[in-house]
């Protein structure tokens, strides 16, 4: 079976750089992780392997570099420059890694060894494939850092990973991968852990590196925006099978498979500049006390041994009116999570006041605080830890009722089934424990728990950022519907501008602890006033192929 793809002149003669045929990877698992995948990557080509968690995309990449976990059995064929990788000896694989294929890992925080300098790690990579003298290796290391566009490489080469920012660390990881001039780069979610503005830089760099080195890139990602920016060809995976393969423009313009369409449809988008902003009617202002009001709030993490006190948030003023959803956006380190925690009363404000439902959190007695908190709920970020692993779903949802001694056992049980129904969960799940649920189901349970006492204010800290796009779309849709029905106010903390745009009435943009801009969502994202907001909005990788996006921006 041949799948049509971009043919380049040099590809017709020589075998493609990477040819994966009928790859199957089996575990002792109900279903094989990968069931017959075919992928080819040509020289200088960027192919994206797209899919949600469990689609087998990372397993495929690991098979290519011979790093399958123990107990995995791979069959089929993986040819790299005409040589078979599957079944190759460990010695052959070792020669292949680095020089033939190199891997760019996902997590720049942990990928470099923290106790060695950047230069040491680059030299180690260089020396793994042939003796290089110390001086030569250093020279080469500096050149590599220059290649990945790290400023002042002669100094940086002696730095330790913790002295670099997240984006620079990812550049170092790239330099490590490039050290032995591999012909194929495997990039496994190379920008997932980065902020959007940094992500945009790294993606641009990856593109330039491909042009310079002529290496092929197999890009593994779940982010359609990243695919659109970088890839030439896209292979869509689902449950270990290829559902669609197409050049990037065609895939985005006319996706054939329903799953691809669903995937593309699930991606939250920002309005493009050409569309006129549709202004939602603003919720009636000043009708009653705001659900949450922050006045000139400063949050300081006190000094600890050898570390000066750190002001995470300073001079922040905004309010969340009753029934309104306010999105709090910012990049990592902007203080958005800190502010969310201060609003929930988990952190004290060093200066300024936090009013919840008209009551100043700082002046309340413990008892009064508990009363105020009856109308407050938190939906945490990480679905793996948002529920007590020992509690059944029913017990988790009923916990607020138990805490505040609302009703008797029967009425609580009735409320639980009502809430399960509201978040569209099967009542049969009531006696399950969190480990028996999917991430999306867990976040629904967390949402149901938050709504148990009909709160006036819900604080949601990145409630969907750990979920797959299609699951995220469902949860967001559910959230919006419930918010409209129940009319609770919400402070929605997120780094994802498109998600915030979708759910929020108003937006507060934070940068390094300061409010940069705030206003109605449509206005802030449609016509940002502040330079930083503009950069933030521009950096969001839109699920529109690169050239078209450019064309649109020019027109």
């Amino acid at each position: 079976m041949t799948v049509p793809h971009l043919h380049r002149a040099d590809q017709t003669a020589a075998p493609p750089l990477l040819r994966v045929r009928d790859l199957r990877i089996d575990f002792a698992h109900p279903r094989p992780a990968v069931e017959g995948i075919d992928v080819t990557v040509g020289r200088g080509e960027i192919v994206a392997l797209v899919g949600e968690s469990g689609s087998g995309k990372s397993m495929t990449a690991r098979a290519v570099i011979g790093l399958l976990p123990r107990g995995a059995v791979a069959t089929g064929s993986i040819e790299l420059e005409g040589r078979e990788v599957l079944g190759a000896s460990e010695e052959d694989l070792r020669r292949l890694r680095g020089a033939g294929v190199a891997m760019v890992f996902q997590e720049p925080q942990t990928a470099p060894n923290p106790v060695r300098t950047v230069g040491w790690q680059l030299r180690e990579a260089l020396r793994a494939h042939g003796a290089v003298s110390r001086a030569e290796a250093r020279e080469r290391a500096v050149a590599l850092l220059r290649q990945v566009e790290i400023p002042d490489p002669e100094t940086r080469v002696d730095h330790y990973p913790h002295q670099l920012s997240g984006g620079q660390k990812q550049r170092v990881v790239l330099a490590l991968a490039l050290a032995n001039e591999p012909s194929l780069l495997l990039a496994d979610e190379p920008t997932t852990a980065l902020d959007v503005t940094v992500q945009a830089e790294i993606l641009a760099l990856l593109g330039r590196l491909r042009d310079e080195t002529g290496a092929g890139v197999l890009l593994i990602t779940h982010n359609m925006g990243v695919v659109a920016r970088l890839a030439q060809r896209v292979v869509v995976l689902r449950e270990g099978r290829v559902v669609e393969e197409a050049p990037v423009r065609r895939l985005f313009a006319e996706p054939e498979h329903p799953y691809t369409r669903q995937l593309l449809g699930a991606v939250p988008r920002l309005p493009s500049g050409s569309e006129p902003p549709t202004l939602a009617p603003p919720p009636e202002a000043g009708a009653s006390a705001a659900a949450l009001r922050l006045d000139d709030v400063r949050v300081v993490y006190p000094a600890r041994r050898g570390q000066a006190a750190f002001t995470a948030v300073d001079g922040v003023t905004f309010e969340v009116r009753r029934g309104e959803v306010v999105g709090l956006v910012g990049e990592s380190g902007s203080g958005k999570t800190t502010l969310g925690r201060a609003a929930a009363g988990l952190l004290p404000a060093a200066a300024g006041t936090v009013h919840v439902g008209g009551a100043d959190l700082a002046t309340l007695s413990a008892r009064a605080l508990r009363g105020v908190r009856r109308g407050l709920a938190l939906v945490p970020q990480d679905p793996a830890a948002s529920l007590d692993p020992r509690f059944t779903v029913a017990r988790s949802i009923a916990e607020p009722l138990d805490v505040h001694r609302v009703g008797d056992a029967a009425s609580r049980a009735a409320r639980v089934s009502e809430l399960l129904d509201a978040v569209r969960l099967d009542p049969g799940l009531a006696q399950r424990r969190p480990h028996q649920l999917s991430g999306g189901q867990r976040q629904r349970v967390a949402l149901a728990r938050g709504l148990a006492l009909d709160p006036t204010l819900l604080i949601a800290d990145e409630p969907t950022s750990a979920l797959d796009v299609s699951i995220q779309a469902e949860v967001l849709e559910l959230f919006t519907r419930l918010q409209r029905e129940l009319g609770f106010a919400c402070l929605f903390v997120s780094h994802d501008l498109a998600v915030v745009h979708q759910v929020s009435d108003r937006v507060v943009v934070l940068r390094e602890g300061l409010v940069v801009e705030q206003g109605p969502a449509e206005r802030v994202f449609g016509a940002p006033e502040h330079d930083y907001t503009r950069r933030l909005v521009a950096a969001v990788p839109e699920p529109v192929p690169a050239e078209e996006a450019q064309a649109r921006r020019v027109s």
Partner: protein
Amino acid sequence: MSTAAVTEVAPAEGVRARRLRWGALAHGQGLVGVVMVALVVVAGLLAPVLAPYDPTQQIPGANLAPPSAAHWLGTDEVNRDILSRVLHGIRIDLVVVFLAVPVGAALGVALGLLSPLHAWADVATQRLLDVLLAFPVLILAITATAAMGPGLRTIAVVIVLAELPIFGRLARTSVLKVRALPYVESARVMGAGETWLLRKHVLPNSLEPLTVQLAVSMSVAVFIEGAMSFLGLGVRPPDPSLGSLIKDGIRNVWEAPFFVVGPLVVVSMLVLGFLLVAQAISAQRRR
């Protein structure tokens, strides 16, 4: 809605989860460990029934006799039946293992659980535990014996003091970790009080890592009892204990090399059994 059906499922689910948690003890090294410990425990509990003689009874004419049909493990230098003494000696270890260790563990966990609630109390408790940890157990044992005189009570106190800081530290660490988890913070934000959080979330989720330590501590306790009695700091003659039996055996090893075998086998079984249990539980947790 199918509330009736749902409540019916509940106990079955709970049982299944518990079965999973203790499943490690139903096969492989866990099972071997449980069987070893169980054999010794049963032998100790049934000592009055099983023992052919009174542990302090002196049998005329049987001085340092080798194993025979009448005396399976032989007799000691004052004509007492060693099997009877070993069986009764086990009971001392049972008290130590199943009373002193759990008491020390419970006190330690209570300290670890409560001390982080208050900054100053926390510092004070931790420094106190530092002091206790700094004492080698045997020095602690000698000091305690000097103050209280030798005896079972002293052994128990020493073991409680030795286990207290270990459990205090472990419990505190897992409490601090669990307290910062999102589900605990969610409960806090919805208005749950500190006692509610500790009782419902923190304690149950902190205890599981401690089960491994409990099994390890039990094996160490057998060891401490043996060492103390061996040094004459523990149980006073003529009462038997495994440690004092080993001491007597070593003294007579030239004339009666079989003497020390019985008590040594029992001590080894207990120590090894508890270690196997600990390993099995921790392997299960890692999975």
